[in-house]
């Protein structure tokens, strides 16, 4: 176990919260006890009023930057202008962590605003590895790569998603952001074994965990899980979270909520629940030792 080489400081080892626009005023007014906040980088680009607000938050809390727009898996390559803007933001915020996704969003110059799936092939591996290396060179820090929620697979995929991520780690030195909800969603939708998926990841590279809610959509007697970040964390996601903690140790963990955003106190409640589960996992570890 190489847990002590992970990039996060001990202050981050309790559960943080994804900060969304409607909660910013509450947070700045009440200064709640939260170990760190994570924001979507794309909402704070350029030095203007939005970035001022983020820097005010940063004055009191560690901040993690979660990008959705680098489109690391696009065959046409990374958007250099967007990377330069992310670099400006990272230089201003001095984030504890910076992450983006194992996905693509841009084709023919059109930004499709979704984290679209990749075929897990040697060709896609080369595209992703080149883009991650470019981003890490520009940002001068390791990037964490998050596993996507998937609704389909490519017939031409030749690798397991977890093996694909492991190979990206080997080639680029990037870290991994394990979204436990996305594993549950993808595993259900694509009939995979979520536990086996976790077990294939290189544990030393896992530097952050995401938790979020999903919803169940019924169509033609079949159920698909939709990753909408619009509810409390589901029971099977908590279950897999405990298993992830046993395998990866305590890493910075985040509650994400985007659609149907509730009062901030609900997010605090979910974060405390994650901390309780983490503590009981540590107790079990201690007893087993």
């Amino acid at each position, binding site marked *: 176990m190489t847990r002590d080489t992970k990039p996060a400081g001990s202050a981050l080892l309790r559960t943080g919260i994804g900060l969304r626009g409607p909660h910013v005023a509450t947070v700045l007014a009440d200064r709640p006890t939260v170990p760190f906040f994570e924001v979507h980088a*794309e*909402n704070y*680009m*350029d*030095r*203007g*009023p*939005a970035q001022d607000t983020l820097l005010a938050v940063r004055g009191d809390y560690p901040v993690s930057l979660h990008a*959705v*727009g680098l*489109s690391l898996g*696009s*065959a*046409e390559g990374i*958007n250099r*202008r*967007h990377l330069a803007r992310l670099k400006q933001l990272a230089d201003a915020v001095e984030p504890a962590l910076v992450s983006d996704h194992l996905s*693509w*969003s841009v*084709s*023919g*110059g*059109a*930004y*499709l*605003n*979704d984290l*679209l799936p*990749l*075929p897990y*092939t040697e*060709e*896609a591996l080369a*595209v992703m590895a080149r883009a991650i290396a470019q981003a890490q060179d520009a940002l001068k820090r390791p990037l964490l790569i998050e596993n996507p929620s998937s*609704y*389909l*697979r*490519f*017939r*031409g995929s030749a690798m397991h998603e977890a093996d694909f991520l492991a190979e990206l780690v080997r080639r680029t030195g990037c870290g991994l952001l394990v979204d436990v909800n996305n594993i549950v969603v993808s595993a259900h*939708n*694509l*009939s995979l074994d979520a536990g086996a998926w976790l077990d294939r990841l290189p544990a030393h590279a896992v530097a952050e965990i995401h938790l979020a809610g999903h919803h169940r*959509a019924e*169509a*033609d007697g*079949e*159920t*698909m899980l*939709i990753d909408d970040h619009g509810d409390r964390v589901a029971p099977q996601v908590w279950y897999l979270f405990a298993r992830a903690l046993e395998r990866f140790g305590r890493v910075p963990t985040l509650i994400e909520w985007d659609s149907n955003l509730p009062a901030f106190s609900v997010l605090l409640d979910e974060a405390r629940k994650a901390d309780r589960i983490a503590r009981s996992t540590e107790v079990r570890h201690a007893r087993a030792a």
Partner: protein
Amino acid sequence: MLALPDLQDAFRDALLDGNAKRILREIENRRVGAAGALAIYRNHVRLSLTAALRTTFPVVCRLVDERFFAFAAHAYIQAQPPSAPCLAEYGVSFPDFLAGFAPCRSLPYIADVARLEWALNLAQIAPHAPTLDRAALAALPAEALPRVVFTFSPSVRLLASSYAVDRIWFANQEPVQAGVVELGGGARLQVYRAVDGAAFDTLEPAEFLFRQALQRGLTLGEAAEIAAAADPMFDLALDLRRMMQEGILSSFNPAQAKEMTP
């Protein structure tokens, strides 16, 4: 299997144009089938981009109603998808799109309302800029002043409409009051970022022409002539002071003023 550039091109076609023929051969889902799985992505792209446009153009949405807005937004997203990932910057061409969108023909003012909302959005997200150094301007010799050229703050937009888009905008803010808005009379507006956020002011014709000339890069002397032609009572010093108080000027160019001195 298609090579990655072709695969992503085919995926894009399926998401934007509904032309899924090429991509359906490449993908699978045992629960809902390839087409069912693809529909989940298509739905997300359409709904999330429509929501982004609704955030930027709330008054347009209120004027045409949610369903029509979603219909217009969908056509726009197909024709002109975003080119960059910051969604607050998406929609620059939506006003022009609405102007040419046949189903909107009965609402001739809608494009100008959209232009006002876009200008307010830009005023809010524009990066900070320096404010004009008033002492340095005051220190210029009087004979140099007519040749000064100004740079405006990036948050400033001037907007003229033959409809009363200012009254339409105010009438559609929460809480919406029932009543009739007089559409005629036109509007000349200066949209900018005030201390507490995006705002707009109504301008007199001469004030509008004065700012418009300066923003196009004409000299202070040339702009003053244009304004005076529209209104012989135009008070240059007063209006310039007001512009500086509002912080809409970012810098001036005395070098050019000197260069052009005969």
